[in-house]
């Protein structure tokens, strides 16, 4: 080969090797690392959240014209795994992390995101301390445990008022994980100040969210002889607990969650059938009438023709919104540079959203304020909004009728 030919070949090779960079600059994608518990004891909820993530790239492309590439990771309901999955996603080039449904995992991922300087948008996780650490790259579009409890207790008051009931005592059962403890702290702080609530807690029983048997816990709760069960649960334990209540013939006035997952999930209905009816969850919920909900619902049904958004609205909705927040910031920032992206997320102001409440705006701690809750009661195999009245589709039923085998 002559010197000129060699130089031409070298130049061509150099131009070819530079091509991917040019292509990348012309058609960039936002790489979103989605960390969810798709297996383990939170598996069902993680899969429900994943449905919201899966539909996000298509909907966001149409809404914002932004290309989103999902990098999915399963943290197997294990906090340590969540940490390593976050590390790996960042190593593999994720520009932003989204997830993880669980407070313990969220706290672990937040540390990784902060150390590595990669924005992390929390879809669902309520432990208040996550956004109290002064983190610069951590953002949460979900209520803190204190907000959940505050709204949840207010809705319990509304429930009693709407049903003209005055329960005097409650037995409080809760999971003993990070979320459960944060909720317990919130209830301990707020309940004594809610003087309009007529009941007092006569016994508190904590249990392992991965428990396979709750015989003892339910025996103890039944022995407290309380008017109703105040429950902070997850999904699998909620199913086990409800079955055990029937076995032990314990019929309190009702099961009311002041704000926890579990009882509005599809699997709760599938596993329990008619037994799932009348359980009440006061939780951050989605607005079925919003424009965005209708768009998301259409995409959801296209991807999951046999499913109903009613069962996944909370999980899929908040997961979708977390990815939307990242994509919206990316569109404004025009960069995947972590600091620029984090600054853009901080400036978020999304008015057309799925969840109840005001616009998505982060405060100086990276927390969205003003997300609304609804009192959701299971009726005829569907989670149904019964309060506030403005969003209600049915009237609340309390006390719940006794379960009878049909």
């Amino acid at each position, binding site marked *: 080969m002559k010197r000129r030919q060699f130089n031409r070949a070298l130049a061509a090779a150099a131009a070819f090797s530079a091509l991917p960079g040019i292509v990348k600059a012309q058609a960039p994608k936002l790489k979103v690392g989605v960390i969810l518990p798709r297996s383990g004891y939170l598996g069902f909820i993680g899969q429900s959240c994943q449905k919201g993530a899966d539909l996000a790239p298509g909907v966001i492309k149409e809404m914002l014209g932004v290309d989103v590439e999902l990098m999915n990771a399963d943290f197997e309901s294990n906090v340590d795994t969540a940490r390593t999955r976050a590390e790996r996603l960042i190593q593999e080039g994720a520009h932003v992390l989204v997830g993880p449904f669980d407070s313990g995992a969220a706290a672990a991922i937040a540390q990784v995101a902060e150390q590595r300087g990669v924005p992390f948008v929390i879809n669902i996780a309520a432990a208040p301390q996550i956004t109290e650490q002064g983190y610069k790259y951590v953002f949460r579009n979900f209520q803190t445990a204190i907000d959940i409890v505050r709204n949840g207790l207010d809705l319990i008051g509304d429930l009693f008022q709407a049903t003209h009931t005055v329960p005097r005592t409650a037995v409080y059962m809760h999971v003993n994980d990070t979320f459960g403890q944060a909720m317990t702290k919130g209830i301990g702080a707020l309940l004594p100040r809610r003087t309009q609530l007529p009941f007092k807690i006569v016994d508190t029983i904590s*249990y392992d969210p991965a428990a*396979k048997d709750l*015989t*003892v816990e339910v025996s103890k709760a039944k*022995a407290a002889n309380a008017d109703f069960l105040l429950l902070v649960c997850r999904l699998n334990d909620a199913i086990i607990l409800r*079955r055990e209540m029937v076995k032990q*013939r314990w019929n309190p006035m009702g099961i009311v969650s002041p704000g926890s997952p579990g009882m509005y999930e599809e699997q709760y209905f599938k596993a329990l*059938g008619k037994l799932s009816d009348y359980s009440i969850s006061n939780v951050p919920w989605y607005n079925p009438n919003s424009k965005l909900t209708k768009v998301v619902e259409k995409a959801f049904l296209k991807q999951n023709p046999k499913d109903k958004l009613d069962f996944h609205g909370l999980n899929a909705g908040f997961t979708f919104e977390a990815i939307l927040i990242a994509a919206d910031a990316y569109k404004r920032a025009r960069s995947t540079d972590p600091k620029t992206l984090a600054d853009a997320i901080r400036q978020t102001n999304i008015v057309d959203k799925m969840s109840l409440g005001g616009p998505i705006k982060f405060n100086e701690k990276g927390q969205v304020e003003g997300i609304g809750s609804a009192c959701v009661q299971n009726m005829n195999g569907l989670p149904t909004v019964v309060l506030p009245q403005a969003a209600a589709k049915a009237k609340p039923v309390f006390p719940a009728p006794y379960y009878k085998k049909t």
Partner: protein
Amino acid sequence: MSLDLVANVVVAGVLTGLLYGLMALGLSVIFGVVRVVNFAHGEMMTVAMYAATVLFAELGLDPFVCVLPVAAAFFVFGYVLQRGLINPFITRPEHSQFMLLVAVAMVLVNALLMVFGPSARTVQVDYQLESFEIGKILVDKARLYAAFAAVITASALFAFFKLTLVGKAIRAAADNHLGALVVGLDVKHLYALTFGLGAVCVAVAGCAMVLLVDVTPPLGPAYTLLAFVIVIVGGLGSMPGALLGGMLIGVSEALAGLLVAPSAKGMFSFGLLILVLLFRPQGLLGKKT
């Protein structure tokens, strides 16, 4: 705290413990004869639980009816596993046996994940939510039936080892391996039979357990650990010890949950294990070596 409450909790603990005991009995029998510790024990039980859910879903078979085909399949599986895979490892160092059976466990868990996915599965039978009322004590029907199944299977196994020629030959091979060879017993066959019988215990326990617990692929290791705790408390290699250990663990967990804190239940099983290891290392009914 009322006596009724304590009685209810103790009864539930005893019934659950009997089922735990049956599961651990399989481990104890296998170790007592073959001298191999089955580290895939819990995973095998998970497979049995899945088998029961599949038979229930596809054919509508009650888990207690499933016991027959599942136990038969597990006997064959145990026999083949011992004869084909474990037998060459019997004379090898213990760490090789450990690695082999851990590998079997990993294969089983991942195969279940591939076939069934991570979601929990269960069965729903008519009597699952019903209870017997005996005075002020409520006895969960499914738990009671499961405990009966455990007692019947354990009794049949005791009878087999005590009364049949094959059972006696297995005990002879367990007592004196060289002597058994000298008198012309087919020790490899006897070992495989024993492993098959251990697998049958697991199969029965799995079919009954599925009435009490939803099954997921990662359930296995927890049950392997539980089986170990039970057989160490009861005495490794002792058949009555396994049942006694199961009941003790069941009752201690239940009482700890009631008297201390429900979330501290697991801690008490391990506390009991430490006590037994300190003061009676051979287990409650185990023989000193």
